[in-house]
Each structure stands twice: as C-alpha cells, then as structure tokens.
C-alpha cells in the first residue's frame, strides 16, 4: 500500500500498544494464579499487584501432590483421556471414511442423524444419560466414563473428518482399487496417512474435551479414588475455601498438559476451529 514509512511506523506502534494492553488483560489472571500458587498460605490475599512472592515456596505443590492425592487424580484423568481419544479418533475416522467414500443403503439417513446430533447440547441429555449409565452399571467408575465421552464426541469428529476425506482426490482411491485394495486397505494406507493434519486436530480436541470434562464426571462419580482432575479441583476448593494457594497449585497441574499441547500444536487449533465453526 502507498503509505509513508512514518505513517507505517505510527500505525504499527498504535497496533502494538493496543495489542499489548489486550494481552496484559487476558494473561494477567494466569500470572496472578501462578504467583498465588507459590505464596505461603498465610499471605495468600496480599497485594494483587505483587506478582513475585517475597518468599516463594513449593509447599502448596508438595501438599497437593502428596497428602491430597492429586497425582492419583492426574493419572485417572490421563487414563480416561488417552483411552477415549484413541477410541474417538478410530471410530469417527472409520465412520467418516464410509460416509465419504463407500456406497451403502441408509447412508443419507445415518449421516443426517449425525448432523442432527450436532445441534443437541450435551447438557440436555444428562438426565437420561444418567439413567442409562445406572442401568448399564457404568456409574462411579473410570471405565464407565469412556463410552459417554466417546459417544458424545463422535458426531463432531465424524463430521470434521468426512469433510476432510472429501478433499482427497477420488483418483487415488481408484488407483488402489485397480491394484485390488479393499476398503480397509484404502482406509488404512491411503485415507489415514493423507489426513494427518485433520487427525491431529481431532486428537487434540478429543483429548482436551475429555481431559477437561466436568459436568458428566460430577454427576456419575462418587468415590474419592475415581475422581478426575476437574472434579477433584472443584471439590478441593469447597473443602479448602481459603487455601487458594493449594487450589491453584492443583489447577496448574491440570492446565500444564493443556498448555503444552496447545502451544506445540497451535496451528492445528486454528485449522480445526475455523473449519469446525464455518461448517457448522
């Protein structure tokens, strides 16, 4: 564009100042939380502008991981999230492959039912889901969470992946068909390897969705030893209503894996989010 260098510099300067203010407002609460988690307990409600504690301590983390059993909850959440993610990606990629590449009676009805499901908020289903889980003896166990986490995530991921599979040239399928490859081989050694970015997006969203899930776990889990991290943190705050340092030490344990996944894979986030939002 035809602008003088001075105007361009001014333009950049204004943008940076505004962006910096926004970044400050959005990030400050995290820093506040981080700082509180390193403060000794008595000083917790001190000066909110003092981000670096005078005598930082790891006591909160030590207590949370040891006495308060958060290592256990961390592993519970990790196990549920990993198993659910594997199943979500496997089942939804299979469904998506059939919807985008194979012909079979009833295809349109089944796909429509998937789309209909995308409009149902999962909270609306929580009462009948609870009765279903009770009848299937899936209450109060970590394994019992998995079918519900997987089933509720299948619609969105199937939709996302079938959109992606459609973009793979049909000629490639036909070439493999000539070589005599059946549907399984075309799915496994053609569609999946070509869809790595879309699969990565699914893995990330499926993992974060199950890692952070709260309402369902709150409803079906009772015993202390089967708690997942979000439940443990929320109940922990109820018990230690003034020990915010402990609460935030526990919270940070829960969000650190999320932040790592997010920062490493952030380009997949952008891709997944924008495609998901624009299509739905």
């Amino acid at each position, binding site marked *: *564009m035809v602008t003088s260098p001075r105007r361009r510099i001014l333009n950049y300067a204004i*943008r*940076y100042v505004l962006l910096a203010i*926004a*970044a400050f*407002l*959005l*990030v400050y*609460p995290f820093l*506040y*939380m981080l700082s509180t988690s390193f403060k000794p307990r008595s000083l917790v*409600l001190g000066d*909110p*502008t003092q981000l670096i504690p005078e005598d930082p301590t790891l006591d909160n983390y030590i207590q949370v991981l040891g006495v308060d059993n958060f290592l256990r909850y961390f592993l519970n959440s990790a196990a549920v999230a990993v198993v659910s993610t594997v199943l979500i990606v496997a089942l939804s990629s*299979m469904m998506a492959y*059939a919807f985008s590449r*194979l*012909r*079979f*009676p009833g295809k349109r009805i*089944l796909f429509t*039912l998937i789309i209909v*499901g995308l409009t149902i*908020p999962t909270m*609306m*289903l*929580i*009462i*009948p889901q*609870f*009765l279903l889980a009770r009848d299937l003896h899936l209450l109060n166990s970590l394994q019992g969470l998995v*079918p519900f986490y*997987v*089933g*509720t995530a*299948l*619609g969105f991921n199937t939709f996302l992946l079938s959109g992606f599979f459609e973009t793979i040239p049909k000629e490639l399928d036909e070439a493999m*068909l*000539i070589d005599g490859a*059946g*549907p399984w081989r075309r799915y496994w050694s053609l569609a999946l390897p070509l869809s790595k970015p879309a699969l990565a997006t699914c893995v990330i969203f499926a993992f*974060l969705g199950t*890692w*952070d899930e*709260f309402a369902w776990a709150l*409803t079906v889990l009772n015993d202390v030893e089967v708690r997942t991290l*979000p439940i443990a943190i*929320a109940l922990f*705050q109820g018990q230690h209503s003034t020990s915010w340092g402990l609460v*935030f030490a526990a*919270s940070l344990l829960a*969000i650190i894996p*999320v*932040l790592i996944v*997010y920062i490493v894979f952030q380009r997949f*986030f*952008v891709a997944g989010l924008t495609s998901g*939002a*624009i299509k*739905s």
Partner: protein
Amino acid sequence: MTAPTAAPPAVTVRSALLRRRRGAAAGGGRREALAAYAFVLPGFILYALVMLYPAVQTFLLSLRDWKITPGVDSPWVGLDNYIRAFSDPAFLDSLVNAVVYTLVTVPMQIVIGLFLAILLDSKLPGRVAFRVLFYLPVVTSWVVVSLLFRYIFSSDEGLANFVTVDLLHLASDNVSWFQERWTSFIAICALGIWKGVGWSMLIFLAALTAVPKDLHEAAAIDGAGVFKRFRYVSLPSIRSALSVVVILLVIGGFNVFISVLLITGGTNDTQVPLTYMYDQAFQFLDFGYGSAISFSLTALVLVVSAAQYWWTRRSMRN
C-alpha cells in the same frame, strides 16, 4: 521388438480395469455395503445409544412424574411439567439471568474479538505470539478459570476490588460481589467475556485473512479511509463468519453452566436454566421436571438460532 503400439491407451485400460474390479467387487455393491456397515456401525451404535436415545428419552421423561426408585410406577402427566416450569418464578428468573448473560457477553465478545482480529490482520512481527496469548483463556478448563474468577472477585483484597477501589475509585469500600444477584453477574459475565474473546478473534481473523489484499489497496487508491475500508471491504466479507459466531455464542450463552455452578452455586437468585435443571434433577431427584426444563431450554435456543439464521440469510440477500 518393443513397439510403442503395444502400449494400449492408459485411460481405457484403467477404466476397463476399474469396471472389472467394481464388477468383481459386485456381488458387488453388496460387498462394499457390508464393508461400509463394518466401518459405520460400531461408532454409530454407540452414538445412537448415548446421544440419540437420550435425546428422545429427555422428551419422554418430561411427560412423566418420574420416580427414581426402581419398581415404583412413574405416571404420565402430559404437559404438567412444562406448565409448572413456565409458572415457576425460580425457573423464569433463571431464564432472565441467562438472557442478561447472553445480552452482555455476546456483543462484548464480538466487538472485542473483531477489534483484536483487525489489529492482528497485517504482517505484524509477533502476531502469532499475540494470537497464542489471546487464545490461552479459551483452552483453559472452565473449572479452573471459574475458580480463578471466584478468587479474583473474592470479597476482601481480591484483584477485582483492588481495581474498583484502589485503582479506579469506583467504590469507596470493598465490594462483596457475591452477596447480590447483579454484582455476581458482573463477575460471571466478566469471566464469559474474558474466556471467549480469543475464540471469536480467531474466527474473525480467519475470515479477514481471506479478504483479498488488492481489494483494500483498490479502495485505498480510491481514497477510502480506514473506517470506510472496514465498512465496505472487510465487513461484507466476514458477514457469514459473523452470523456463525453470533449464533454459536448465543447458544453458548443460554447454556452457561459450569461458571455459575462454581462461582455462586446459584445462590442469591443467580440460577441459570442449566444450574436450576441440575438442582431439580440431582438434588431433588425430580427427573421429570428437570427433563422438561432441559427440553424447553433446547427448544428455545433452537428457535432463537433458527430465527437468527433466517434473519441473516434474508439480510444477506438484500
């Protein structure tokens, strides 16, 4: 002699072979269909079991006076649960709260998100870093950020009181945010906006990036200033993104749950429909009434978003 004539035209061979394979696989369409069911059914059966069946059940439960004890009869009561809901002041209050929450958070998220997207829509060094930072609240779990905001708005020396009293002098004394309905909602709405702006920013940024740069240049050459270029070049191109964002944010607004549950627990008249439904179902075990609330809320939200969709379609055609 390897005569070139011996090589048949590749295309015909290919299509002939294809036909053969398809033919061979035909008993043909049938074998493909069988394979397709093997691909679809494991996932679909699970999906139907935990999504479709409960969706139907929500409606059926809502027509009964559901008794949780096994073996006890749950009589059909028709629309009684719905009549009760819409004459229940507590439920109507919860709807009002959800409407207020939506009316406050949705426009704010859109305006701020769009503003940030415009700021980032240029070849600014460090723009990825800003984008990552802005999106941070979006990826953090609702549980953690709800507790964080409860702490920020805690009654004594919290960050919110520091800002209102010591920094901006909006109040002379520390505010007890969670003692009253609307001050509680200041905290809840602040959280909703803070957590959501990164998401709308990202969607708008994607739409803005897709606007061809020469359109801007042409407009600039014609003498259009920043605002005119935004009004006549950017805005029309992000219209569909805008309508998607509005619809999804409104749906999200009406379905606000975790933040209210963990920040106030619905005390001091701060219930929203989902926290009220949750209490009815899992505290008072009134599953029929809870289902009626769930179903009403979903229907209401569907109607509102359908109306929005229809309205944007119409205004886009004009």
